């Protein structure tokens, strides 16, 4: 039993956390293939649509800045949701165990 508890705790909190965050960051990264935050940071000074006129060179960074912030905001929301889910993940076994026994006591 003790073995099971130790293994469970290790797997749930260490391995499980690793898996969880790998998945969460993978999801956020996959969101970037649509949001293009990293691509816009790299190309911040490049004009949009290959428009190398003066106007194009000025407008480019302005639009890109907007897009980067918007993208970051979406990523931040996704991160916060993941963080909340992670807190639930961490708390869940303990909460379930406590609540199970507290409710069990009502039958005693």
């Amino acid at each position, binding site marked *: 039993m003790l073995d099971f508890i130790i293994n469970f705790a290790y797997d749930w909190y260490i391995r499980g956390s690793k898996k969880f965050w790998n998945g969460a960051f993978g999801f956020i990264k996959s969101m970037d*293939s649509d949001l293009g935050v990293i691509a816009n940071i790299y190309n911040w000074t490049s004009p949009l649509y*290959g428009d190398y006129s003066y106007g194009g060179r000025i407008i480019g960074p302005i639009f890109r800045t907007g897009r980067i912030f918007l993208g970051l905001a979406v990523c931040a929301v996704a991160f916060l949701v993941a963080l909340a889910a992670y807190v639930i993940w961490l708390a869940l076994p303990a909460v379930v165990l406590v609540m199970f026994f507290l*409710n069990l006591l009502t039958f005693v």
Partner: protein
Amino acid sequence: MGESSQTEKIEKEIMFCPFCGGNGCVKCENRGVWLKVGGAKYFWQPKTGAASIISSVVKSVLFALFKFFAVIFVIFSFWEAFDFSLVKANGFYPLFAQKGPVQFLFWSSLGILIYWIYNKKIKPSVLLEGDLALMPKVNLNIEPFFSPSAKSKIYAAITLARKEKNPGFVWRLLKVLINEKKMIPVFEKLEQSPEKISRLINQRAASAPEDRGAESENGASAIPDAKKTALLAFADMSALGKNKIDETCLLFALLRFDEINFFFEKEAEVETSSLRYAAFWTQTKPSRGIFEGLFKKRGKRLVKIKHRIMNRAWTARPTPTLDRFSRDITDFAAARVIAPIVNRRQEIDQVMRILERNSKNNALLVGEVGSGRKSIVNEIGRLIVREKALPNLHDKRLVALDASQVISGVKAGGELESRVHLILSEIHKAGNVILFIPDIHNLAESGSEYGFDISEILAPVFSMSAFQVIGSTTFYDYHRTIEKRGDFADTFDIIKVEEVSPEITLEILMREAPVLEDKEGVFFTFGAFKKAVELSKRYIFNKLLPSKAVDLLSEAAVIVRTRRGKNAVVSSEDIANLITEKTGVPITKITAGEAARLVNLESEIHRRVIGQNEAVRTVAEAIKRMRVGLRNEKKPVGVFLFLGPTGVGKTELAKSLAEVYFGSEESMIRLDMSEFQSAENIDRLIGSTDGNTAGRLTEGVKKQPFSLILLDEFEKTHPSILDLFLQVFDDGRLTDSFGRTRDFTNTIIIATSNVGSKIIQERLKEGKKLEDFRPEIEANLLNYFKPELLNRFNAQILFTTLSPEEILQIARLQIKKLSDRLENAQGIKLEVLPEAMNKITELGYSPLYGARNLQRVITEKIENIIADKFLRGEIKRGQTFTIKNIE
């Protein structure tokens, strides 16, 4: 599958307890047998007593019931908690703040759910990488890895061994496995009757000697071998990348036992390698259960291809002109209509590395048709979409330009030039396009009709490295078109795409098969795959593996469906039939009728060739050897040197051989070697490097790989050209002027020569026998041919001069042919009386020219007269024209 070497290695690590021999004792803690891999030790501690077996079965039933009720319980509890009184009315708060039966149900259900998530998703599998050698140092009981059905098979075999009081466990397990429903398709795929195999196994199991650990008549122990088999199955499970020991793993494990291996290979005549493949393939094939219709619908649904121009960084620009003449591979990859490629990792990495560079970032894939050049490019497109390509290629479009569309409809040179300029300019400005030009030689050489060369426009643009280009071409077209356009050729790095191996092709076929089976409504046997690979490699030369094997399988599927209807089985014999239909070469199993014909082959040839018994016997024997598979497949079917005076039947024998073996006289490539008397004539034999002269020999063999090659007057060939034939006769191949290898392994080569004919005539006149003056002829041959060339002939056959009786028989034969022709064409029968026949023989025979004049005499003395009389109306249809005498 690649498991054999690893498991061979593993088998050596099987250890038995020296005290109990594997039955289990106190000293080995009842483990008995171990599988040792690196620092890890695995054992199987089964509970094999009758009570244990029953308790195990009861346990598994109870566990299944428990799982069922747990699911019902969780659903019910959540339903109660959410719907009944709590959450719906007051939110989640009461679940935490209040206590009661509903809350208890909810939290205990959540506990079960957590345990389920932990068990399924988080708890590490002991076999992480499918490689036991990589496992941490553990001492592990493999009991949890058994699927219930596999374990029940082992128990059944142990029970059977106990019942029969024979510890021959492996035979009992095999018996149990073979009677398993799942195994029937495996043997059907191998074109074997499951009943026959089962009968053979029952016979062998009954007579099998006691394997190991027999204690006494009633205490015979099958345990050590049961444990050994289980551990080997565990190793196979790991090698096959599975996470449960199932029946396939058990079968693989049994095949590690010498006696089982020997049984399948020698007694049941089933190749164990094929059995492994078939078992693996059948058991891992996608389910054809109740969801089949659903998958079919998904597979056949119309996929909408969305065209994406813009990249994530918004730096790209639209490319309307390019889009008109191209197909965006990344669009297709994004729609998931491009299947992943098998193998070719090396070539794909090479191409991506070239594209990743800052300069000279253009790759040229050079390979024969069907070698998989397009698949490589498609795979790169797939990797780009999945962001698995190298960083510089991320977020790019891979666009295949259709050169023929670019060229078509152009009315003036200027139009073509401006069209190409516009496309290149669009690509340059877009900045996110990787250009793929299939068959780039077509584009490179276009424009010449308008007085310019497109390659001169492309070369400077490609050399700027402003965008990446992938081209594809064949070896022939590379030499012919691209290599001589130096500047253009220099812009590319060449990657050779070679033919894939037969083993990889087999894997590709196994992957493609379910799609083909669904499409055509037929089923393939494993033998059909093997035959498709083997025969397409040997008999199809205009394409490469894997495409020629895939095409062969598809064609066979269509033929079988149309001839035998849906759900028919495509077997190896169907593939062999198809190859025979395509090539005319008899490669199907020898039927009783054909066997009789082969036995009488000499008399069959003698129906056309009169006399020359030794020559006919030698070639007939060669054909028989070849037909029963005794020939060396890396050499031509036969290489013969026919020696003798003119007009004695050398060419006639060659023709009759072409008819008998290749089905028709037309399957003969005839070269008059007197046309190759100088070294410069080599171009006419293997082609010139500038491509202006086609090689008569190499091109002839390319068009007719199954043919008889007749090299007339071989002694007149220039010595340097003769040297070429050393390779042809010995290796069965010849390289043409473009470096393409031509295959001669399916040809019969006959060289004829008049060398020594004078000696033959004189010695025969002196009344000597052939064998008496053969050494003299052979010595004389050395004046014309090198010994190494002469040694490469399978036989040097001497043709004797024809006797007057033989000439008479030839005359009869030719008159018979003429008579048949006349009757078919004009309905007139021809009768030549003996006196006239003798006269024809007399006029047609010459000691110097043999029977060569016979045909001329028949033409002059009979055919001309008949034609004349027919035109004058003196003979009519239905009449018989009799020739009594010849003037």
